[in-house]
């Protein structure tokens, strides 16, 4: 309970407080007072009474102005509020829209990623495909290279074609791997495709090669053609057609060149056309053969260049046939010309030269070609020229021997025989340097000697025996000396020798008979052979005087051996023949003398002083004669 003191206390306190308050220190009060000072100007009762209302009025005014001020603020706030509300609305709209967008985007993303995946797969597939295509398909360029441009009729072939073809082959081979991998259908398809490509390409290649093969010697094309041929050998039919085509081209080219060389000669007439020398058979034939011999190896070389990269069984045979084929057309012009030469009468020596040329060049050319028409033609011409040559020789021989001349008085071979022998000698010396001389020489000798021997025999048959033997010996001696200079004449020489021997025998017997007759030896010899008549000294004709005279004649003969020789013996051309006849006929004499000597010295025959009758021993006599 608040005690009165207390009450008093609170009042005191308040008063104190007022009293204690120092108004000067209270700003609020000061402020309030200052304010008051502004309107409270007069300190009157009225004024004091009105103060309150004035203050209240004043406070109302202030509140009034507060209100209007706040109203203004409120309006502003309202404005702001509206703006914000608007904003909110917008944002909400935006949020909404964002939301929408967000949901929409999600779908898109899903789609995108799906597509992304797909894309990756596709990329992968593409990679695989392109790898496959790269491995198993041809590029556009390759296809063009393979099949050529269909718009152009002539496309130059390049090495790309061969690369492409190799690629095709490679792909074809790779298909096997594909097959192993289980992709049969694909593999088969590709294989088929490649086969088609290959066939197509080979056909293009074939056509190209066929039309270009003739230019194999052109350095720009050579390589290509060679490669093409190497490719084509996989297709024997195409290969063969190309070779055939080549042969046709070269054949006509070769014959054209040959005719040119014959009729036109080289560029601007150098070398001169071969036919310019047609008047000289030997040069003409030689020139033609030289030309062919030069041309054929070139053809062979070209042909071998063409198939440089090829090798298969039967190729050599094919090439041989092809070469023979190429050379076929030149046969006819050659044959016609040489035939013409052979059909004109010519001297045997010219024909022999032609024959030898043919023989030589045939040998040369046959080293290059095997078989075929050219070989045949050359062989034919060789045979024909040999025949013509021998015929011409026979004609010459016959024309010289057409008349049987009587042998001259000296029994030497007649001039036509000597002429023939000199012709024979000429022919033989030419033949001895030629190829196949053995056969030739024997043929030539036969051709000349057969009619010659017949003619000689014919001539001789009209002569008396001794003259005949001498004439025959002389003729055979001439032939013998002519033939001994050459090889391969052994058969002929043997025959001549044997024939001479026979004639020497005849001559010996003639000479011996003549000697016996001259020395009166006939009766003596007859008596000597007959042993039935008792002692020889008693037989008439065997008297010592007669024998002595025989010996003196023999003596004379030994010093003058020519005196009682048959005169014809001296006409023998061969001193060997002469000596032989002489010796053998003297031998006959000596034999008889020996018999006589023995008989005289045989006491049975009762000769007195046999040494005085036949003073010479057979040995002494032999020594005298030899």
């Amino acid at each position, binding site marked *: 309970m608040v005690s009165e003191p207390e009450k008093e206390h609170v009042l005191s306190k308040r008063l104190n407080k007022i009293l204690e308050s120092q108004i000067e220190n209270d700003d609020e009060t000061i402020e309030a007072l200052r304010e008051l000072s502004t309107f409270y100007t007069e300190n009157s009762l009225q004024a004091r009474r009105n103060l309150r209302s004035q203050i209240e009025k004043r406070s109302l005014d202030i509140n009034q102005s507060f209100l209007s001020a706040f109203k203004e603020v409120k309006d502003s706030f309202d404005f702001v509020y509206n703006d914000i509300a608007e904003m909110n609305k917008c944002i909400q709209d935006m949020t909404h829209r964002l939301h929408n967008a967000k949901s929409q985007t999600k779908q898109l993303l899903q789609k995108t990623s799906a597509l992304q995946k797909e894309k990756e797969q596709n990329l992968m597939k593409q990679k695989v495909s392109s790898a496959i295509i790269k491995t198993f398909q041809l590029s556009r360029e390759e296809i063009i290279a393979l099949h050529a441009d269909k718009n152009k009729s002539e496309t130059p072939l390049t090495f790309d074609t061969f690369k492409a073809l190799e690629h095709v082959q490679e792909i074809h081979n790779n298909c096997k791997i594909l097959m192993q991998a289980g992709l049969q259908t694909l593999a088969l398809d590709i294989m088929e495709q490649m086969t088609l490509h290959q066939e197509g390409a080979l056909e293009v290649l074939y056509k190209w090669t066929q039309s270009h093969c003739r230019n194999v010697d052109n350095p720009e094309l050579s390589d290509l053609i060679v490669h093409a041929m190497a490719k084509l050998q996989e297709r024997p039919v195409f290969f063969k057609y190309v070779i055939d085509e080549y042969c046709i081209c070269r054949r006509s080219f070769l014959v054209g060149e040959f005719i040119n060389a014959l009729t036109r000669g080289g560029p601007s007439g150098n070398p001169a056309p071969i036919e310019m020398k047609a008047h000289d058979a030997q040069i003409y034939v030689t020139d033609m053969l030289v030309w062919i011999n030069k041309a054929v190896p070139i053809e062979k070389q070209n042909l071998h260049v063409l198939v440089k990269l090829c090798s298969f069984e039967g190729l050599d045979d094919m090439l041989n046939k092809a070469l023979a084929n190429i050379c076929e057309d030149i046969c006819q012009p050659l044959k016609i010309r040489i035939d013409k030469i052979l059909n004109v009468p010519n001297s045997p020596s010219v024909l022999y030269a032609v024959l030898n040329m043919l023989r030589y060049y045939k040998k040369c050319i046959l080293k290059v070609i095997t078989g075929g028409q050219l070989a045949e033609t050359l062989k034919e011409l060789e045979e024909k020229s040999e025949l013509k040559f021998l015929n011409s020789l026979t004609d010459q021989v016959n024309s010289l021997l057409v008349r049987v001349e009587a042998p001259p008085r000296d029994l030497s071979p007649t001039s036509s025989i000597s002429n023939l022998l000199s012709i024979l000698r000429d022919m033989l010396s030419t033949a001895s340097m030629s190829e196949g001389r053995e056969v030739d020489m024997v043929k030539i000798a036969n051709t000349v000697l057969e009619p010659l021997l017949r003619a*000689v025999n014919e001539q001789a048959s009209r002569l008396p025996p001794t003259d005949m033997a001498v004439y025959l010996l002389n003729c055979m001696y001439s032939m013998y000396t002519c033939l001994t200079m050459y090889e391969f004449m052994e058969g002929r020489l*043997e025959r001549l020798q044997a*024939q001479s021997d026979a004639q020497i025998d005849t001559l010996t017997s003639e000479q011996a008979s003549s000697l016996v007759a001259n020395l009166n030896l006939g009766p003596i010899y007859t008596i000597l052979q007959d042993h039935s008549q008792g002692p020889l000294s008693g037989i008439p004709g065997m008297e010592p005087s007669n024998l002595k005279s025989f010996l003196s004649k023999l003596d004379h003969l030994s010093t003058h051996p020519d005196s009682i020789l048959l005169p014809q013996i001296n006409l023998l051309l061969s001193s060997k023949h002469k000596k032989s006849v002489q010796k053998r006929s003297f*031998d006959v004499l000596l034999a*008889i003398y020996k018999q006589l000597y023995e008989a005289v010295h045989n006491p049975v025959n009762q000769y007195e002083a046999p040494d005085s009758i036949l003073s010479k021993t057979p040995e002494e006599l032999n020594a005298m004669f030899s």
Partner: protein
Amino acid sequence: MSTGPYNYSYIFKYIIIGDMGVGKSCLLHQFTEKKFMADCPHTIGVEFGTRIIEVSGQKIKLQIWDTAGQERFRAVTRSYYRGAAGALMVYDITRRSTYNHLSSWLTDTRNLTNPSTVIFLIGNKCDLEGQRDVTYEEASKFAEENGLLFVEASAKTGDNVEEAFLETAKKIYQSIQDGRLDLNAAESGVQHKPSQPGRNNLSNDQQANKDNCAC
């Protein structure tokens, strides 16, 4: 000289004689070439052929002189008789005249050759049986009487041709073996070893001389 055609031990010389047209050249041709030569021309003088045969394992070269049958060549052909070891005397069985001349041919042969010369009588053209003019028996008798070997042959078919030449060679070879033939005599018609030109010509020959002087 021991190779090729020189590889033989003896040379035998033969002569083929007989009338014109009996086929002497054809016989020779058949023997050396084993071919029949139709239209054979007349032989002028002498023709010559060789062939190497074998007798008792010895290689022998036959040197065969085919003589002209024509009378006008008689002088020429006579030269060849002397050196003959074998003489083939030929007649034509279709022409009696050729047979009738045999005795004169034989006389010639006997006179001109040496006694050891083997004479072989050949009746040629035995393929022409239809035109036969000389019987086998008659000719055979003639051969026997004259001591000749005899055969009928055909140059056309080759029958007995080979035999005639070979038989002659065998007979000659036999003579050599028996020593009846003097190899050193040039006129024996036989040479030992291949001919060496000139050597035989110089060898002395009594036999021939006697003949020469006898006539």
